């Protein structure tokens, strides 16, 4: 579903991605982790073309993201994305947030979009909050709305960039529950996260990045039980004992 081949990216003279290759098969969950500044956000934003890359190829469902002929908005409409800071549109209420792209991008009618939006709010347990504005919700609620907003586009895969790291600890669980459920339903997911419990439960593989490189790309069990590189070992011991 997602194929990343030999992708490199430079900001001026600093290299932020170094020959990165990995893939996410249909129905698979892959977790990406690594220290701050290692290039995780950059990599995941390259997948839907929010960031341009200098070298290499990325295809999503067979469509090349870096190809200038690719209709990026059309591709992005099929790839859901969830951000660290939720990025709900603060001037629209919850239901309007869910309806906007359905109407403007998919051409659904307002009624269709609202029906679909309400069904998804139901699913993330926020049906009662449809008329509220993002600023009136807790972080965990906002992130669940953000997930529902992405799902409303009926995406073929989902990208998550540290969806729980801006949340108070007591709200992390409610967001992870939604993500686990999605994974169990067979959604293709690429998740940047340091929630190792989540990784163990649903990830097929773990990709470990450091300094723009993919240092390890291993099946989840193997990654946790016997990380191959010293860098991954050091990272894991830091993150599991914090």
């Amino acid at each position, binding site marked *: 579903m997602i194929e990343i081949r030999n992708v490199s990216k430079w900001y001026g003279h600093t290299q932020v991605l170094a020959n990165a290759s990995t893939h996410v098969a249909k129905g698979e969950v892959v977790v990406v982790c690594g220290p701050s500044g290692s290039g995780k956000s950059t990599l995941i934003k390259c997948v839907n073309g929010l960031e341009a890359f200098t070298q290499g190829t990325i295809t999503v469902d067979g469509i090349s993201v870096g190809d200038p002929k690719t209709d990026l908005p059309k591709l992005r409409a099929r790839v859901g994305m969830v951000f660290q800071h939720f990025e709900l*549109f603060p001037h629209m209420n919850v239901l309007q947030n869910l309806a906007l792209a359905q109407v403007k*991008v998919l051409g659904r009618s307002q009624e269709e979009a609202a029906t679909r939006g309400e069904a998804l709010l139901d699913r993330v347990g926020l049906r009662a909050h449809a008329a509220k504005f993002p600023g009136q919700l807790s972080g965990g609620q906002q992130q669940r709305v953000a997930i529902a907003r992405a799902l409303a*586009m009926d995406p073929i895969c989902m990208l998550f960039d540290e969806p729980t790291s801006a949340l108070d600890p007591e709200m992390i669980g409610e967001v992870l529950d939604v993500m686990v459920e999605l994974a169990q339903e067979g959604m293709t997911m690429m998740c940047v996260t340091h929630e190792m419990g989540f990784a163990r439960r649903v990830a097929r593989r773990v990709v470990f990045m450091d300094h723009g490189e993919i240092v390890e790309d291993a099946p989840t069990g193997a990654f946790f039980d016997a990380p191959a590189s010293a860098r991954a070992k050091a990272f894991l011991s830091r993150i599991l004992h914090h």
Partner: protein
Amino acid sequence: MNYHWNWGIFLEPVKSGDETYLDWLITGLGWTLAVSLTAWLLALTIGIAVGALRTTPSRLLVGLGNVWVELFRNVPLLVQMFLWFFVVPEFLPRDWSLWVKQEMPAKEFVTAAICLGLFTSARIAEQVRAGVGSLPRGQRDAALALGLTLPQAYRQVILPQALRIVIPPLTSEFMNVFKNSSVAFAIGVLELTFQARQMQEDSEQGIETYLAVTLLYFICAFTANRGMAWIEARTRVPGLIARSG
């Protein structure tokens, strides 16, 4: 002070003609409102567009936007008024030039509205650029990630937020438009300041004249201020706490 006050002067007829001085001031107020409101609509439209262009990823568009802003804000408004009135028509194609000079209806009014509108648009563009820049970058990413095109992202997500943020500086621009419109008297628009000078010379009651005109300008600017405050209250988003980044 040895001054002969006469507050009744406004109802007295002017020296030559059957109008009263009040009629002159009302005409002046009408032209002031016409110039100001036309200029404001022009300024808002162009200023928002240019301000938005200056925040796009395109270097060309950013550059053009910057040139626009620098052009209009580095030359005094009065000089710009003369440039538009005396110089610009000379550089138009011959037919247009003739038409502007000889046939264009309400030539002074049109020139003043365009001049003040473009001048103000540069200032609005600067504020809109700052407003867009103060939004978290993630808002644009989130809009694009949903499949919106960049123009759709601006229209639906970025500008509605940026414009709410810049209502306070826009308010003072709106008030400035009324005050700056007085410069139009220099090219012969029959607006308030023009009428005031005429009334002062004709009636020799300069103090009453200018106090009345001061009050009229004050009312215009103050009404603009209250109007914008009303818009700000009406567009306020529940629960919105500004987050920048």
